[in-house]
């Protein structure tokens, strides 16, 4: 049973998010300052360009034969110089920004991942893997895109707008009045677009996400769909989601694609107004031709960024939302730290006792009510009972993946909270129902739990787990890379590999939670035999539905509704004629 999903996260204060982003930036303060200085300089240089070309054109004059060549060439030379320096600076700047943003991204990803390894198991039980993945990849990428482009864009825009305005006022304060018309237009337009487009883009991402989820689910279930000949039905359902996705895309585009032409329009409008008034001013002798040309160039530079701001603001908003999701994960409380007086445990005897343990994943739904059990050192304890009775939960408590709500669990007489988590967990070797193999060689997968395991060790473990022959038939033997898909590795073989992994451990106790449910019984018994020799004198906990698996157990615990209803060995329980005997007999009916 999975615990219920946690409540949806509360939105964080936007200022705090920005502040924390700022903290990441401030670790590279030197680079940030250099970047800002470079931005300012290269933009100022680019701004000087039009002024120089204006001067050059003025020097040309408008009469044939009247060109002042030395002045023209002087300014042309200056233009070349300024443009070259500006280009070099902007290249250095973008390289610098790539390095800066990648440093931040690296740090952020590592922070998220490091935190991930410290989160309690509960977090993973209640959050979808896809969601965690999307935080560490897409969300951080969004933050990154915004950090590396928008910040500079804002700096550039501010400088360009400010600088252009100053230059234009210097050239002709009267002409600047034109912007009294165009700036309010663009502000009005920007606001309108932000309001209109944002929910559309949000919807578009949502619909694409839904389509993704559907596709993942359906393709994974291909075989089943084929077997029931439901391809048509699924195509029909896909079409509905596909249509929703492309429609949402279209709607976002419908309004979104207005931005470009509109920005262009406002620029053109400025140009038209400037031409008219500029021409008039020229007629009345208020402005020279060269100045008019510089003014036109500046005005083009001026209007662009103002409208760009619309895009940047909405991008920043999505970056903030993404950063919020990232920080929320980093802020998730980690596993409670070990108590200060917690001790390392070594030389475990293997005596485990539980006294009046009460636990529920959700405080309102208690799974284990009042559990008492004693496992003597070296005994084999089997836990049986119907599904949902809380068997796996007991394992979760023994390993301290969860802590009980009340009651005590002791290892060798010591309350397990007084033991460091690391040493507690390492004293068990655990094999779970859900096999876990990672993308890596067979060798790495088996040797995972033991540092410095040799090939001989691994082969010995694989032989004991009866998987050696299978491995030898793989194309590269123990060096074969295990791939989730495209390999015809059966569920049972996966279980054997994880058993081999557990066999390599030096643990003093063993937990098998349905570890061999997909393995045939003969192999299972051979493995158990091998394991028992390996684990001679060590305590074992076994959960299994197949009663044959556990018949030889020293103690069989029958769990029902979170309580132990019967306890004893096979013969005792059979004689008793209770729940266990019923379960056992039912296999012959």
């Amino acid at each position, binding site marked *: 049973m999975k615990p219920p999903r946690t409540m949806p996260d509360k939105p964080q204060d936007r200022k705090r998010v920005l502040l924390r982003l700022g903290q990441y930036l401030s670790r590279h303060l030197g680079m940030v300052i250099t970047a800002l200085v470079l931005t300012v300089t290269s933009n100022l240089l680019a701004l000087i360009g039009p002024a120089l070309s204006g001067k050059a054109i003025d020097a040309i004059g408008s009469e044939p034969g009247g060109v002042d060549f030395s002045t023209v060439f002087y300014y042309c030379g200056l*233009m070349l110089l300024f443009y070259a320096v500006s*280009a070099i600076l902007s290249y250095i700047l973008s390289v610098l920004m790539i390095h800066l943003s990648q440093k931040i991204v690296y740090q952020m990803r590592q922070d998220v991942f490091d935190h991930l390894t410290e989160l309690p198991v509960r977090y993973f039980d209640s959050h979808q893997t896809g969601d965690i993945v999307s935080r560490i990849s897409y969300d951080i990428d969004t933050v990154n895109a915004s950090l590396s482009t928008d910040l500079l864009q804002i700096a550039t825009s501010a400088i360009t707008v400010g600088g252009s305005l100053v230059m234009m006022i210097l050239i002709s304060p009267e002409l600047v009045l034109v912007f009294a018309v165009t700036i309010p237009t663009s502000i009005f337009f920007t606001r309108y677009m932000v309001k209109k487009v944002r929910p559309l883009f949000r919807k578009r991402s949502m619909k694409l996400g839904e389509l993704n989820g559907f596709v993942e689910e359906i393709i994974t279930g291909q075989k089943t769909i084929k077997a029931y000949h439901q391809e048509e039905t699924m195509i029909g359902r896909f079409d509905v989601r596909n249509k929703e996705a492309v429609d949402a895309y279209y709607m976002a585009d419908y309004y979104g694609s207005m931005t470009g032409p509109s920005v262009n329009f406002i620029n053109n409008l400025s140009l038209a107004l400037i031409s008219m008034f500029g021409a008039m001013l020229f007629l009345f002798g208020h402005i020279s031709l060269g100045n008019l040309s510089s003014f036109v160039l500046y005005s083009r530079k001026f209007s662009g960024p103002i409208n760009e701001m619309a895009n940047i603001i909405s991008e920043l908003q999505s970056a903030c939302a993404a950063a919020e999701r990232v920080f929320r994960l980093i802020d998730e409380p980690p596993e409670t730290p070990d108590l200060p007086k917690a001790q390392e445990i070594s030389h475990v005897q293997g005596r485990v006792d539980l006294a009046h343990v009460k636990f529920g994943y959700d405080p309102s739904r208690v799974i284990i009510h009042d559990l008492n059990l004693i496992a003597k050192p070296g005994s084999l304890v089997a836990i049986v009972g*119907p599904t949902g009775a809380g068997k796996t939960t007991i394992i979760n408590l023994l390993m301290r993946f969860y802590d009980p709500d009340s009651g005590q669990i002791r290892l060798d007489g010591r309350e397990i909270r007084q033991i460091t988590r690391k040493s507690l967990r390492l004293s068990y070797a655990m094999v779970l129902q859900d096999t876990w193999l990672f993308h890596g060689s067979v060798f790495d997968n088996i040797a995972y*739990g033991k540092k410095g395991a040799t090939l001989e060790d691994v082969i010995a473990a694989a032989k004991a787990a009866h998987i050696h022959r299978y491995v030898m038939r793989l194309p590269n033997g123990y060096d074969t890379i295990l791939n989730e898909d495209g390999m015809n590795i059966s569920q049972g073989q996966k279980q054997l590999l994880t058993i081999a992994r557990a066999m390599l451990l030096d643990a003093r106790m063993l937990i098998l939670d349905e570890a061999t449910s*997909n393995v045939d019984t003969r192999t299972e018994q051979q493995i158990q035999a091998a394991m028992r020799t390996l684990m001679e004198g060590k305590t074992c906990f076994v959960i299994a539905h197949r009663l044959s698996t556990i018949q030889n157990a020293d103690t069989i615990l029958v769990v029902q509704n979170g309580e132990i209803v019967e306890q004893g060995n096979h013969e005792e329980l059979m004689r008793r004629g209770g729940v266990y005997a019923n379960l056992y007999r039912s296999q012959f009916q």
Partner: protein
Amino acid sequence: MKRLYPYLKPYLGRMTWGLIIKFTGSIMDLLLPWILSYIIDDVVPLRDVKMVLFWGGMMILCAVAALVTNVVANRMASWVAQHTTESIRHDLFEKISYLSCKQIDEYTIPSLEARLTSDTYNIHNLIGRMQRLGVRAPILLLGGIIVTLLLDWALALVLIALLPLLGILVYFVSKKGVPMYMTLQQKVDAMVRTVRENASGIRVIKALSKGEYEKDRFRQVNSQVVYWEKKAGVTMSLTNPMMNLLLNFGLTAVVAVGAWRVNYGLMQTGAILAFLTYFTIILNAMLSITRMFVMFSRGSASAQRIAQVLDTPQDLMQTHEAPQPSPYRVEFDHVCFSYQKKEDNVQDIHFRLKKGETLGIIGATGSGKSTLTALLMRLYDADSGRIFIDGQPIASIPQGELHQKFGVTFQNDVLFADTIYENIDFGRHLPKEQIRKAAECAQAMEFISELEDGFEHRLTSRGTNLSGGQKQRILIARALAANPEILILDDSSSALDYRTDSLLRRALRENYGETTTVIIAQRVSSLLHADHILVMEEGREIGYGTHEQLLESCETYREISQSQMGGDVQ
């Protein structure tokens, strides 16, 4: 890219209109600086305020026309992209739905997923943007060049001389950059995989205290991603400053050459001014073309990946053979099969089942039990030997008809994010009573009725909100719901306790007596009463008969049976 053409074809008319409208809009953009220079050079000297206002008005008119045409054309482009993508995605999904299991194994599931999602997004983006930028940028570029040629050919030549340089620049940078982005994508995949593994294996990682090790492992993939992102980014970021530099150099050259020509009375100063404005337009057009270039190479990679799937030849062709009357419902005639076409996974399997009979299959892990059912359902074709249903070779039965005969639960079968009712009905629109009956027989009613919303209870994807035993019971109900002719249960009761398992078997016997059943199990108790039991080892039959017969004849079976049930049942 060629493969996409048929999808665009129905919209060619619309696209053409869109392009014409876009073309008009771009001309308007080009007219503006022309008018500007006309005002300054020809109207101003006339000192006629009315004329200035008139031409200024014309400029505003042009600006409005440019706005309207561009918005309309953009929307038409989005419309075309929307409809094209919809049908490409539909066809791709349909094709994938009908791929054979062998073909799916070859492509692998994650790769097919990526083709349906990110690759189709890329195409959507590409079609939309190509129509928008693809017309505008070249028109602005070409138009800009033509207008400048008309304005003054000598200055225009300065400009044209730059173009090959720009082309070379774009070519080399993209040639270096695009493969880098492909490597980057692989590194990102590795990073995502590491995170996935950590989320799914958290218990094992914690149990073995491998947190620090995993941090290191992530540090490696993380720095790989960062390394390639930097490398690709730095390479690509060369384009912009270089282009700006080249064009600005050209601009300077225009001023210098212009000065010379004005001096000789070959042109007027206003033209230089207009030239500078055109330069900005041409610069922007060039930048768009660069971006398009990158987009196009990325898009064509996606198009290739999509086309590859669409062009996969149909597997598992239907043969035409007349059925021969046969008393048997299911017949396996010396069947051999291998997944990798190297070592046989199933070898010389031979059995016959009559209507209503039950076959139990038992055998070691990896002995080929599940493969047999996959062959029976023709998810794969046997390499040699034949399989018949009611005397008809399965290769001659249309896939749909064949699959409708079956009810099946696979090992690790899937539940979908839908209600329990829908998961059992599974799009077949079965009568309500039949679903209820199936749920009852599968022993699922017991917990369904305890749920507040009963059958309407929503499952999460893969049924993660149910326990193992509950999942199996819903899957069995799904298999039973349509009263199948043949029922296949592959290790589908492993999570059921013995009591529930035996109740299930009794219900099957009582309610589905007509159904021919194939049960794969590890528990002898699940097979005990089967009419025939097949014992398998390494793909071969090592025993066949009833429970009693096998106890006599098959040593392996006897061992299994004794180990599980002790001496109680001889």
